[in-house]
């Protein structure tokens, strides 16, 4: 399989609005790896919040327009495991007819969460750390149990030059975000988060990395509130783009 030369970025609503720097870093990273990056116009959200709350008619309409927007993309890169999961697992079932279904299936096959794209499609796992200190990793639920991916992000973090990777106790346990769950039962969501953050702080890490903007919003929100020195970072924020090719 030849590494793709071109990829479209599906930014996701959370990264677009709250963490645009993550998107910027991904664009620069991919370009340095020789990938031309497209950003198809008209993107909003993958529809997962609607889907998970049970509003499937609304979710289906959002899904159909996303499929249309990315129809011409050879490869699609997504910075969140949950959104990638939504596209890969739920889109095909939300389509109205066979033609739409085929288009959704094709998009599902071309869609990759960032760490998977880097490791499995580009075959790149050696990067320099963009941050100082010790790093740990939180498995986002959809990436781990939905896309069955535990290894790609860890491979990248373990091999970081200038970084020290430590495993997180209970890394595979939920951070308590869960989309609207976080505000429907905020006390329970926060209690789950507190447990996660206690584990992060006990790990001695300076930063906890996640591959999902939802988990990041939850963990950053909690770390900031408790005035912790630990930072929650997206994978793209710890991978330093390699020097210019030929430079």
């Amino acid at each position, binding site marked *: 399989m030849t590494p793709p030369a071109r990829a479209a970025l599906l*930014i996701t609503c959370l*990264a*677009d*609005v*709250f*963490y*645009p*720097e993550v*998107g*910027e870093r991904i*664009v*620069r990273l991919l*370009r340095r790896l020789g990938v*031309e*990056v497209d*950003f198809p116009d008209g*993107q*909003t*959200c993958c529809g997962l919040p*609607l889907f*998970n*709350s*049970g*509003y499937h*008619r*609304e979710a289906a*309409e*959002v899904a159909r*327009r996303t499929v249309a927007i990315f129809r011409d993309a050879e490869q699609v890169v997504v910075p969140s495991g949950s959104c990638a999961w939504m596209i890969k697992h739920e889109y095909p079932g939300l389509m109205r007819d066979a033609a739409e279904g085929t288009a959704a299936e094709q998009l599902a096959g071309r869609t990759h969460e960032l760490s998977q794209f880097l490791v499995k499609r580009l075959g790149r796992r050696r990067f320099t750390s963009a941050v100082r200190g010790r790093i740990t990793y939180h498995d986002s*639920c*959809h990436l*781990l*149990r*939905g896309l069955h991916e535990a290894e790609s992000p860890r491979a990248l973090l373990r091999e970081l030059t200038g970084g020290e990777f430590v495993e997180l106790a209970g890394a*595979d*346990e*939920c951070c*308590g975000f*869960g*989309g609207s*769950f*976080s*505000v*429907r*039962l*905020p*006390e*329970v*969501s*926060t*209690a*789950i*988060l507190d*447990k996660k953050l206690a584990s992060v702080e006990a790990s001695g890490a300076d930063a906890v990395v996640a591959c999902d903007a939802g988990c990041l*919003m939850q963990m*950053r*929100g*909690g770390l*900031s*509130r408790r005035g912790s020195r630990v930072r929650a970072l997206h994978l793209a924020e710890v991978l330093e783009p390699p020097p210019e090719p030929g430079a």
Partner: protein
Amino acid sequence: MSEPELDTPLRERAGQALHDTFLQAALTIATTKFIELRREAFGEFPEGEALRDRAKAIMEATLQRLDHYLERLIDNVERRGGRVHYAASAEEARAIVLDIARRTGARLAVKSKSMATEEIHLNEALQAAGVTPVETDLGEYIIQLAHERPSHIIAPAIHKTRGQIAELFTRELGREAPPDPEVLTRIARGELREKFLNADLGITGANFGVADTGTIVLVTNEGNGRMVTSLPRVHVAVMGVEKVVPSMTDLAVFLAILAKSATGQKLSVYTSLVNGPRRGGELEGPEEFHLVLLDSGRIRQLAGPLREALGCLRCGACLNVCPVYRQIGGHAYGYTYPGPIGILLTAMLNGPASVRDLAHASSLCGACAEACPVRIDIPRMLVELRREVGDVERIAPWAERFVFGAFGRLLRRPALYRMAARLGRLAQLPLVRRGMIRGLPLFFGEWTRTRDLPPVAARTFQERWRDLRREDGR
């Protein structure tokens, strides 16, 4: 039947649980232990994964022909001299058991641990009819003394610490009891021995019913199940219709994974195979054996969205790994079956309206589906229930439906979506402190009460893209 816990809203019930320090201590210790034990048990058992697949296949094939296997089970139980009753509802099931009790003149009933009899609230009905029910599983015995309901499918008293149990024994049994599990067990054993000898009626559930042989299977750890099924004159087993397995070979597959998933044991201490009443020449066993097959919404789900949940073995593994259950325990759910699978079973037994709020008591993290010995896709069905509540039956609050409807429209109109980001940027101006939003009014405050919120970025990614595209230099 009304559930007294439900007078308080779910969020409040959960809040009370979060503030109960005893509960928190007990839950963390017990669920962590269960998780470790299960992990070790399957770790030492490489064929476990294949057996889980096999179990799921057997379950699906059995549901395909459930009528056939049930008929076979009924024939074989009757051939062995047992009597079979069919209960379409919890009410019918109670009436059947009460009728048996009345006819046999029963005054004292001993019970082996059974979620099916919890589900139909049998103890209250027996009590009201003048029959004293005595729970003989240690956990259930504790719960009965405390006038509570089980808070876990296999560990009913999981929410209690040993100190609380010692106090309970001291108070209820009128004798000094130290917080020592061994001593407490010995006390319960002494109390129960006398009940076993005097009981007229033995009541159990059933982990499985083997169609080929008419055997009722009980999986227990304390030996009380054997006493309940062999000492009293009459034995009544209440079994959900979905608990039928075709053959002894199939049973072996389920037994190989059930105890490992539940307690991490290779097998439970006792696996009792009950083959009807005492026959000529046998020294032990009841004179009468009754099997009550309980439908109560199960059969309907053969063609319903919760079909897969009919495969539940009641091992409790999904409770132990559920981040929500681990925080709030079983009682906060408010119904007989707690945890993620409990939400599905509650909807099955009581209809989707009963889980309007409960269907959302999950972060959909998927740990339950991963732990389930028969790989029931619990999160998918929770979403399906949410769809019924929100989209189909429209029993979600109108404000919620309005918000999600508006959100959906926003996401279909990119210009509107971009404008919303700009509006958010303006609205947040007075609220941002040191790069984060620390307090918000109304509904949004649900987030900021305990967590900071990132502000809408000064420039969204979409707004930055024009510059980024130029940067490419190609």
